[in-house]
């Protein structure tokens, strides 16, 4: 089970960090097309909240249905590939929207959802999914939920500060976003290679 815990800890920390890093970077992606006002931050935060909400429900649902860890990490890999393409997608998408929607609030909301709905919704599934899977094993969710949220939030803290205080100063935004995509893809494929379904199945005697 040690490998399972390590793999889950890696996913929680990494995806927690990447989600917040993308949230910080999205203001740089939006401001050339919709301005740098508080409206942009309203759009960014509210969009991410919607993506989180849907992701939490779906993550919990997948855990309840004992969705295989391998399939789940494959989904995470697909979301990572989407992130890899954001630098190519964002300029044409934002130009298209800004030319058609004059209101910067509606425009930035539309752009945020087109670019980020798919990857952030999937990434938000990580915490509830892992809580659900480990609860099957432990028959108790209290300590598990606390640890899972701790690791995910710690990742978010690191992702936020690293991006806002250092990465934006060192690299172009497109390269940071692509780098985040590669990190997510590598973490997903690494965890996929661990074949955790068999280990969890043996340990918990539950069918996964």
């Amino acid at each position, binding site marked *: 089970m040690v490998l399972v815990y390590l793999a889950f800890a890696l996913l929680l920390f990494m995806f927690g960090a990447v989600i917040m890093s993308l949230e910080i970077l999205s203001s740089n992606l939006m401001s050339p097309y919709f301005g740098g*006002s508080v409206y942009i931050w309203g759009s960014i935060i509210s969009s991410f909240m919607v993506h989180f909400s849907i992701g939490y429900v779906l993550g919990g649902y997948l855990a309840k249905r004992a969705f295989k860890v391998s399939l789940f990490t494959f989904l995470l890999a697909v979301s990572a590939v989407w992130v890899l393409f954001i630098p190519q997608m964002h300029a044409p998408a934002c130009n298209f929207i800004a030319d058609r929607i004059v209101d910067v609030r509606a425009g930035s909301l539309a752009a945020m959802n087109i670019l980020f709905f798919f990857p952030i919704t999937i990434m938000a599934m990580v915490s509830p999914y892992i809580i659900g899977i480990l609860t099957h094993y432990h028959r108790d969710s209290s300590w598990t939920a606390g640890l899972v949220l701790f690791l995910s939030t710690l990742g978010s803290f690191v992702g936020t500060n690293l991006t806002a205080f250092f990465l934006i100063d060192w690299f172009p935004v497109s390269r940071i976003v692509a780098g985040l995509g590669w990190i997510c893809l590598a973490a997903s494929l690494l965890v996929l290679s661990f074949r955790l379904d068999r280990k969890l199945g043996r340990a918990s005697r539950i069918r996964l």
Partner: protein
Amino acid sequence: MNKSIHMPCLCRIAIILFLLIGTPKAAIAESEKTLYEGDSIYNHITIRQAGTNRCMIFGRHRDQRQTCMSIPRPDESVFEYTAMMFVGFRLLPDTRNVCLIGLGGGYIPTVFRMHLPQVRLQSVEVDPLVVRLAKEHFSFQLAAGHALSVTDGRQYLRRTPEKFDQIWIDAFNSDYIPAHMTTREFLELCRARLTRNGIVVQNVHNSNQLFDAQVTTFRSVFRYVYVFEGTNSSNSIIVAAREPLYAPPRFCGEQCRSRIGPIDLVRESRKFNPTPAIRKERILTDDFNPANLLLNRK
């Protein structure tokens, strides 16, 4: 016994402290009056009056960006940079229209209204509260030939089909700047909205690394970039053009006006520095833009 000995000493110390610290504060409080304090969706705004000068202050500290106006003489430039921006008229004296991004208290439109009635002025201000306060406290009014758009400066330039002889950018705080208006792509948009001999005039603080990055970025877009340095402030003016009609240091010479109201254009022109000390910085783009981090680096 001890008490009786110590009390007079404490009283003396208290009186000395009051004289040292209390009196100047009291004097400031007497001479300064707060006319408005509140928050918009963009800024914390305070309007203060000290003597005959009324200032709109952005942020919570007095040393942050402010725009001031002399109430009895509203065309008199309280700050050095506002007068410096008018050197644009020494490069292009026959300017017919100007786009001003950043309204503040409306000092610049007031000078246009009083002394440049033939020039059409398009002001752009992102904050509706700034517009309201400029009208209420600084007697800002739209003159004939003047227009105002309440929107983001970059979005305005993106949507307008109009071309301008001069685009003036005065939208930056000393502690925060709209980063999307510092980039090469933004300056390319400005260039596309200029007439053939048109110029961009931008106010910047020269005490941080953002200044170096801004000049470097201007040089990547415009063939001619001129820096004017304030003599009693840390403000500089960047003037950029593709094909300047009258370039520094000769400007338009005797052929054009030497004053606009109380602003001495010849004196402001002398602040041109042909060899400004610019440190090596990367060009700011929409993709690479640590503008607000550079702003805080000396």
